[in-house]
Every structure is written in structure tokens, then in C-alpha cells.
């Protein structure tokens, strides 16, 4: 099914990425601190351009970072802009910004991104233990 899903394993500097139209999963999770974040996110943005030509009924993007450097923040802002443009064309989208309890930096970046964008946007606290457990099961 076109477009082919993007599934990227996390690395020390780049997050886990799943953009899967068929299973309706859209998420970026983990750490994004690469200096060349532009290069990393470019294929994702290209993928989204194709995807939004025939989007699913609702596109829910989960953003969950433990670290995000400023050049990655710009890339995420670019992606949110793409969601906003499509939302204004009456395509249903939802952005979910998740942050760990007590992580003010990521919480605040989410607040800023929410302020500057005109798109359905929710922020959620998540418990890291659940994730660790999930990761563990996943790896095994």
C-alpha cells in the first residue's frame, strides 16, 4: 500500500519513528539531538506530503521526546505546520504531545509549539515506567 510505512529504530541521536498508514500509527518517540536533524526529518516530511494526498479518516500524531535539540524543534515545527495546513483543508488531525512528569523542558517546548500552531493539540503526561516495560517486552 502506498506510501510504504516508515519505520526507523531509535539511535543514540535520533528518535524512533513510525509512520504507518495501513495500521494508522504515526509517532516519533525518544531522543532527537542530531546536528543534521534536517537530513533526518526530510524523508518524513516527503512521506507526509504524499500521505496527505489520501489521508486516513483521522491522523493522530504522537510526539514523545526525552530530549529535543533546537534544530530538531524546528523540524518538528515544520511537521506540525504540515498538519496545520491539512487541518485547514478539513482533514481531521490530532497532535498529542507527551512528556514525562517533571520534565519542564519538554513540557514547555510543547506549550510553545501549541501556541504557535492552529491545530488540535493536546499535551499528556506519561509514566516512563510503562514505556520501559514496553521497550523491554519489545526487545525480547
Amino acid at each position: 500500500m502506498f506510501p510504504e510505512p516508515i519505520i526507523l529504530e531509535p539511535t543514540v541521536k535520533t528518535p524512533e519513528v513510525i509512520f504507518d498508514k495501513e495500521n494508522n500509527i504515526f509517532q516519533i518517540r525518544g531522543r532527537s539531538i542530531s546536528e543534521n536533524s534536517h537530513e533526518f526529518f526530510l524523508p518524513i516530511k516527503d512521506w507526509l506530503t504524499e500521505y496527505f494526498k489520501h489521508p486516513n479518516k483521522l491522523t493522530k500524531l504522537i510526539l514523545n521526546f526525552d530530549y529535543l535539540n533546537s534544530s530538531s524543534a524546528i523540524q518538528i515545527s515544520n511537521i506540525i505546520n504540515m498538519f496545520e495546513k491539512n487541518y485547514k483543508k478539513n482533514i481531521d488531525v490530532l497532535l498529542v504531545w507527551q512528556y514525562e512528569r517533571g520534565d519542564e523542558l519538554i513540557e514547555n517546548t510543547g506549550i510553545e509549539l501549541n501556541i504557535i500552531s492552529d491545530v488540535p493539540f493536546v499535551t499528556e503526561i506519561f509514566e516512563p515506567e510503562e514505556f520501559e516495560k514496553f521497550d523491554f517486552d519489545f526487545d525480547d
Partner: protein
Amino acid sequence: MTTNTIYQFYRLLEKDAISFSYRGSFSNNVLTMATQLFKDNVEEKHERLRNKLSFLMIESFQNISRYADTEESLNLDENSEFFMTRNIGDTFYVISANLIDNDKIPTVREKLERVNTLDKSELNKLYREVLTNKQINEKGGAGLGFIEMVRKTKGKLPFDFVTIDNKRSMFFMQIELRNPKEDDGLPSISLSDAKQIQALVAQENILMMHKGDYSEDAIGPMLKMVEENMQNVSLKIHKKIFHFLVEILQNISKHSYAVNGKHEGIFQIGYENKRYNIGTGNFILNTEIKNLKTQLDTVNNKTVDELNEMYRKYLREGKTTKSGSAGLGLIDLARETEDKINYEFVKINDTYSFYSLTVKF
């Protein structure tokens, strides 16, 4: 820690290709990361020394925890344990300093003096004796560590005890590992250098210091090490330090002036009056100073609201930094630091200067 401290250390460590020092309570984590740091970053010609160096770092490190008897305290003071590894020319140095009870000094001194006077075959003999006799003292070593250090380096172990009071002294020791295949002809660094560095690190309340090549590849293991060592710090502070370290170090790798093809830089993390400091230093072309200074002054003179406004504008426009305007990284840094960003430029020659920066959290 001030911008001048960074410059002072830069001068002290001028010849170091890589150096790393750590002060405070020791965990195996620090050790793992420090050995990794050197494994990943030593030059190819020293590759054969890697395993030996790791071994010596481990021995030296464990020696600290073995002899560091006096009650462990969470507060850092001028007598906190200190560990340092340096690479200068074709030689590696592993330096340790820790408190020792005065009544243990004669035993340690005797062991060290003995290994320092033995020749190769005598050392091997002693090594086997100690191994077979299993004469292990209550602290789990019969000087085997010292014997191994001398055997592996084929040199002596300079050491000293600096009296603090009638109960305790500071025990300094230095291991020197030369590359037998290379000879840079440089004289050895004396133990008094190590003492001077330790004293300054303590005086300036520095927890961790690194000097080396800040090309992108080199930053990874360092960040990992800092992160692993921040586990006992609150999540909020830990994330902030890590976040800004990423920004600052990437800034060095991107914008610093490369001398002899290396983006040389130094970074320090300090803790003073219950606040963390990050300090960095690197070279910059003289022609770029004016522009950078404008950027720094711009963000320093903005209120938090104005900075937030700038930050949003940058995010919204979604563009990467153009020269002539303050980058998102600097704006972000200025938003989060409790004081202004302190900076200083020291002219090195007509081409470049030393640029140091400190921020507090």
C-alpha cells in the same frame, strides 16, 4: 567558575590531545564511561595502548575506592576524590587523588617504594608470590594493583601524601604510559602538575572537565557519560544540563575555528552555591567575533517575554539559523539560564581568539 577559569584550564591543558577529569563520589558508571571516552577517541597510532590504558584506568580508579576510607560525604569539598586521564603527545597519564587516613600511609608508602625499586624479573617474582600466597589484606589487595601498574607501564609510580590535618592526608599518584613505538621526545609531566590541576579544579568547584576534539563524532560518548552521571540529580536539572550541553557542544563543532584540523574545545560542569554551571571554551576566527558578540548581547538584553517571542518566531518560521541573527540554540539558552550568558574573548593571534562561555542553572 568564570570565563577566565576556562581560559586558565585551557592554558594548563594546552598540550593535551584529550583529557578528562572527574571529582566527587565515584561510581563504576564514571569509570565505564571514562574508559569508553578514551577508547573511542585515541588516535590510531596509539591503538595498541587502548587495552592497557583501560586496565590502568580501572586499577587506578579502584585504588581510589579502596583507599578512600574516610566516611563518604555527599558534599564536595577541596578534598573530594579526583581522577584524571590525559594524553599528551605519545604518552598517557592516569592521575588519582583521594583522602587517606594518616595511619595507613606507612603501609601504602612501603608498597609503593618497593614496587618502584624492583626490576622486571623481581616484579614478576613478587607478582607470582602475591598471587600464590593470596596474602590479601582487609581491603582486598596486597599491592597487586601497584605491582600491575608498574609491570604494565615499565616505569615508576610517582606518588605523594599531602597532609590535611592530623587524621587525614591527600594521596596523589600518577601512572605514565608511553607508547613504545612512538617517541615524541617530550619530557614527562611531573606530579606537581597534577596537584596544581586538582587544586584548581577543587577551588573552582568543578565536577567534570573534558578537553579534546569536538567534532560531531567525538561528542556522542561524552554526552552519554554526562547523562549517566546525572542520574542522582533531579529530572528537571538533569534534563536542562543535558539539553544545553548538546546545544553548546554542537555549537562548538559547527562554528569553532579548527586549528590543525581539530575543533579543539574544553568543557566543564561545576556546582557552586547549589547551582550548576556549564562552561565551554573554543577557538573562533577574529572576523566572527563581532557578529557573535552582537548575538550574545542581543539575547542577554532581552526580557524573558521577548526571548519567548523570539523563540516562537523562530520555531514558527521553521528556518535554520542564518548568520547575523541569534540562533535558536542561543535564544533557548538565554531563556533558561538564571543569569546572563557570560562570555569572554582572548586574542591568541591575528587569526583567531579563545572564546569562553559560562551559564548557570
